[in-house]
């Protein structure tokens, strides 16, 4: 897998995001580092409140960062950057939001919703050209071009999410951050949206950062996964590695929570509950360490020895 994707697209180095006032700061994301290669799908998994969305929003420059660096194609894109670079980032990095009911402007027609980004970047685009691009974007996501004249409330949940995808595609991005794009949808519609995302990736060589709380979906769509808890990444590995031998107890808890469509094994299942107090970090501090190729975990020396033993 590693050989397949070699060109570094996005690098996040020691990222920290802080909210609140200076007197009472709240550190939402702490010392987060990862890389995303061109063409791959990188998954970020965690519970609500773990900071996974915050990371996505920091990359797309919605949330200001308080420390660390985010490099896109080798250029720093967090903090103060030149206007010209900002424009380029806006066009090349796009986001798909979680709830298609809430993220589309109820009072605007689909035509406007989809082309809004385009009008910001290409100010001198003619009307015809714009309309042509909107209908192309709509048909790319499997909607009819006629839908451009309708309002969001006329669509079902799955169709709305397609509109959300169309409006990021129209910018011709290279990198898309998909923030729980399917958690608000029915299971049968989930499959459609997931298939759409993977076929778009194949056609256009897109790179995804896929944010979700549900590991079962991740196994299907991602190449590598990072598990995040309370703003700290605790484990990162290639998807199959993570599923076949998870090391960190939190990852194991997440995996055991996946509901399987198999009644006999489900009824015997013992749920692993993660208890953070099981780590004794009073003497030996945990650090970010590679235990096998491409498999990183946050642990202290004693735990690392234990994990390595388990991998043998």
């Amino acid at each position, binding site marked *: 897998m590693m050989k397949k994707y070699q060109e570094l697209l996005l690098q996040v180095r020691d990222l920290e995001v802080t909210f609140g006032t200076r007197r009472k700061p709240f550190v939402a994301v702490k010392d987060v580092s990862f890389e995303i290669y061109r063409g791959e799908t990188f998954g970020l998994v965690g*519970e*609500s*409140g773990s900071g996974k969305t915050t990371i996505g929003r920091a990359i797309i420059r919605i949330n200001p960062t308080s420390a660390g660096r985010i490099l896109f194609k080798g250029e720093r894109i967090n903090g103060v950057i030149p206007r010209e670079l900002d424009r380029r980032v806006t066009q090349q990095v796009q986001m798909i939001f979680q709830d298609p009911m809430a993220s589309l402007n109820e009072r605007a027609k689909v035509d406007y919703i989809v082309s809004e980004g385009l009008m910001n970047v290409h100010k001198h685009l003619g009307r015809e050209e714009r309309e042509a691009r909107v209908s192309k974007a709509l048909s790319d996501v499997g909607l009819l071009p006629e839908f451009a004249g309708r309002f969001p409330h006329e669509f*079902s*949940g799955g169709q709305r999410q397609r509109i959300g995808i169309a409006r990021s595609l129209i910018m011709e991005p290279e990198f898309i951050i998909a923030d729980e794009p399917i958690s608000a949808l*029915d*299971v*049968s*519609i*989930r*499959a*459609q949206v*997931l*298939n759409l995302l*993977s*076929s778009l990736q194949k056609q256009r060589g897109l790179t995804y950062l896929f944010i979700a*709380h*549900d*590991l*079962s*979906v991740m*196994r*299907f769509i991602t190449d590598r996964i990072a598990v995040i808890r309370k703003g700290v990444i605790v484990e990162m590995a290639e*998807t199959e590695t993570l*599923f*076949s*031998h998870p090391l960190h107890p939190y990852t194991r*808890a*997440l995996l*055991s*929570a*996946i*509901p*399987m*469509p*198999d*009644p*006999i*094994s*489900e*009824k015997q*299942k013992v*749920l692993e*509950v*993660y208890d953070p107090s099981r780590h004794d970090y009073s003497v030996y501090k945990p650090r970010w360490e590679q235990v096998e190729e491409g498999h990183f975990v946050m642990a202290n020396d004693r735990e690392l020895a234990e994990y390595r033993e388990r991998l043998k």
Partner: protein
Amino acid sequence: MEQEVILSVKDLNVKFSLRGRVLHAIRDISLELFKGESLAIVGESGSGKTVLTKNFIGLLDKNGWVDSGEILYGGMNLAGFTTEKEWAQIRGKEIAMVMQDPMTSLNPLKTIGWQIEEALRQHQGLAGSAAKKRAVEILTDVGIPEPERRYKQYPHEFSGGMRQRVVIAIAMACNPKILICDEPTTALDVTIQAQILDLIHDLQKKYRLTTIYITHDLGVVANVADRIAVMYAGDIVEVGTCNEVFYSPQHPYTWALLSSLPQLGVKGEELYSIKGTPPNLFNRIRGDAFAPRNPQALRVDFLHRPPYFEVSPTHKARTWLLDPRAPKVEPPEHIKNIRNLRDEKKEDAQR
């Protein structure tokens, strides 16, 4: 094993009037609910699963009515109830409901304690310290730590999972016989989801509850349901025990629902998805409602509505495929392997 029927639905038809047109939301449903069991009702949004259960507690929207049929509970026909006074004997006390979204089903202006006591005041006439004592008891029951302190807090001070526990506490306040959980975990994280399902399961054992789970996700019900009813377009298309529905599903719609689970997907291949959209219930439905979306539909599916065919005494499905004259159509390959999934998982665990 002879089982006692606690609630039975007979040929129920429910209609709604919407902008001058009539929508046929529940089409001839018959269903028996056995005492102490947990039944899962599974279907896409709009299939009528919530509408069906709302009939049991008289919470149907104002523009809807029971057109024909009966709902029998404790010797009464709930479908004939008209006044709030009649419903007050059932709602909460006998049958209670847990709503989907804990963010919207609690009153943000009242403390948790007050909201639990509200049910106790209404139904059991408890007040003052007796009510408080019982409320704290219930909070402990649903696994909320420090119930004495939590009792005085407001909903915004609770996390999503804790809020859902509070909603369950309110539903449990009057010791109902039947607990209806309408998508109890859809708004929650996977880890919390597993905990809430465990909680409902424990409560069920402790109080010998009968539970109905409503969900769109077949994956969730494998560990909690005894029986599963699959709904499509206002009709139950297949009903059977949990093992029967997962290991030998009969209706093409059940196949489709199982196939679209990402847990069963193979990386790099296209995930199965159901084509088309559910039928418009404003129109009269001819034949099998799922036929237009079923690539393997038979000609008869478009003409005549299939009756129930019995597969086993506990398992029946409404599909012409079970007719002796039907051609043999095999379920999709990868859902046949559900049983093997378990073995794979075991290997994973051993590693």
